[in-house]
């Protein structure tokens, strides 16, 4: 049995997700600010965290975007194989939702049509869309409004198997250091380890959708995440790089099998403006 989902329902859902994500931070991020306020030693760092909380509240109540960089929309779709999308194309529907959301929501158009001529598309389309076909008849849409400043500090490395876990750890901490104040700390890191070149990069984005502060389901990886978070927060970079203990709010890792010769590691740097929302149709 297939289930019909019309493109207008998809566009409408994406529009609402874009508009909400940009003014209303999810509770997991707000809880992370509160946790950080209890441990932060730096007065300047504490003040920044408090302003970020105030900013979140003002954004939500006055519906002003939390950050002026309302991002490029990164969209992960889990398309049930028993879903039949009707009335048009899935990707076109998602981009229509982005167009409506960014226009009607007074959100910034930050996308240029060509990386060379740099002419703005005017409506923040297109998004970057990843579709996984999964069993079932549900259509799950997850979106992230991904800021450019932090994205620009994202990095990738192909390590040798001999570099092993120590090499992975060193690279991830190096990423936090090089991101520094440029990427608007406190940062959230999405890390993809394994697969191929592109697989690790996609995993690094997908890893960011896990609830901040929740444990990784794999106990070994969970311990690794906690060790890296502690290390990152000993660097001293602090909120906005003004010095302090809260350099990162969370490090989320996803892994995948890989070739005997390979150890790919991709790190997506996300800022504290971690605007993500999801819906299941």
């Amino acid at each position, binding site marked *: 049995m297939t289930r019909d989902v019309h493109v207008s329902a998809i566009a409408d859902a994406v529009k609402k997700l874009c508009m909400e994500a940009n003014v209303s931070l999810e509770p997991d991020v707000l809880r992370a600010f509160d946790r950080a306020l209890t441990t932060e030693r730096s007065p300047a760092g504490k003040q920044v965290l408090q302003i970020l909380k105030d*900013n979140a509240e003002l954004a939500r109540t006055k519906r002003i975007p*939390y950050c002026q960089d309302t991002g490029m929309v990164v969209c992960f779709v889990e398309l049930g194989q028993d879903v039949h999308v009707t009335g048009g194309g899935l990707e076109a529907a998602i981009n229509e939702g982005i167009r409506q959301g960014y226009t009607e929501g007074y959100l910034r158009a930050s996308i240029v049509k060509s990386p060379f001529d740099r002419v703005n598309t005017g409506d923040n389309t297109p998004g970057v869309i990843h579709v996984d076909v999964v069993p079932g008849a549900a259509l799950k849409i997850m979106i992230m409004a991904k800021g450019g400043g932090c994205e620009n500090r994202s990095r990738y490395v192909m390590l040798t198997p001999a570099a092993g876990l120590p090499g992975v750890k060193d690279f991830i901490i190096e990423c936090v250091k090089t991101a520094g104040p440029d990427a608007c700390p406190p940062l959230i890191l999405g890390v993809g380890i394994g697969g191929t070149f592109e697989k690790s990069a996609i995993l690094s984005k997908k890893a960011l959708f896990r609830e901040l502060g929740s444990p990784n389901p794999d106990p070994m990886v969970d311990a690794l995440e906690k060790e890296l978070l502690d290390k990152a927060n000993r660097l001293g970079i602090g909120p906005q790089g003004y010095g302090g203990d809260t350099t990162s709010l969370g490090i989320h890792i996803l892994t995948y099998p890989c070739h005997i010769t390979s150890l790919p590691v991709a790190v997506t740097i996300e800022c504290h403006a971690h605007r993500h929302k999801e819906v299941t149709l």
Partner: protein
Amino acid sequence: MSVSTAADGIKDVTTPLTDADVQSLKAGDRVRISGVIYTARDAAHGRLLPLIEKGEKLPIDVKGAIIYYTGPTPPQPGQVIGAIGPTTASRMDKFTPALLKLGLKGTMGKGYRGQPVKDALREYRGVYFGAIGGAGAVLSRHIKKAEFVAYEDLGTEAIRRLEVEAFPAIVVNDCHGGDLYQDGQKQYARE
């Protein structure tokens, strides 16, 4: 003198700035900026540079001025401006020394500046302020008036004239070689 220290220890800064004003500011100083500042970021800087190289008149008078690296969201009906936090300053590093040479006194953004910019801050007496990245909604409350001055076709990247009131920022790089990022990280690093 357009820099004065208030009872709460925060320095009130009023534009335009003089060399003496800049010299009185030290890395780590918290400031409140009032007066007129200009917005410009990647694309606008790209248009200013050829004018500077040809010695032509710029659309804004940079003498004593502060340029804020930002691309705001569009205002909703009844709003002066939308969210207006800083963008990464280092992308403007290529252009900043030439503007400081022309008399620009302040730049405001977020993130590291390159050594040539830090050197130019010393040579031409300039200051780099950090605004809180990602606090776009809170910062919008400090903008009292906003109007296009040049390159309106660039949309969010156009040059705007902003009238600001008590806009909160912090001195990151001063004209004496002080660097808040270095000092702050050294102070809080735990090996």
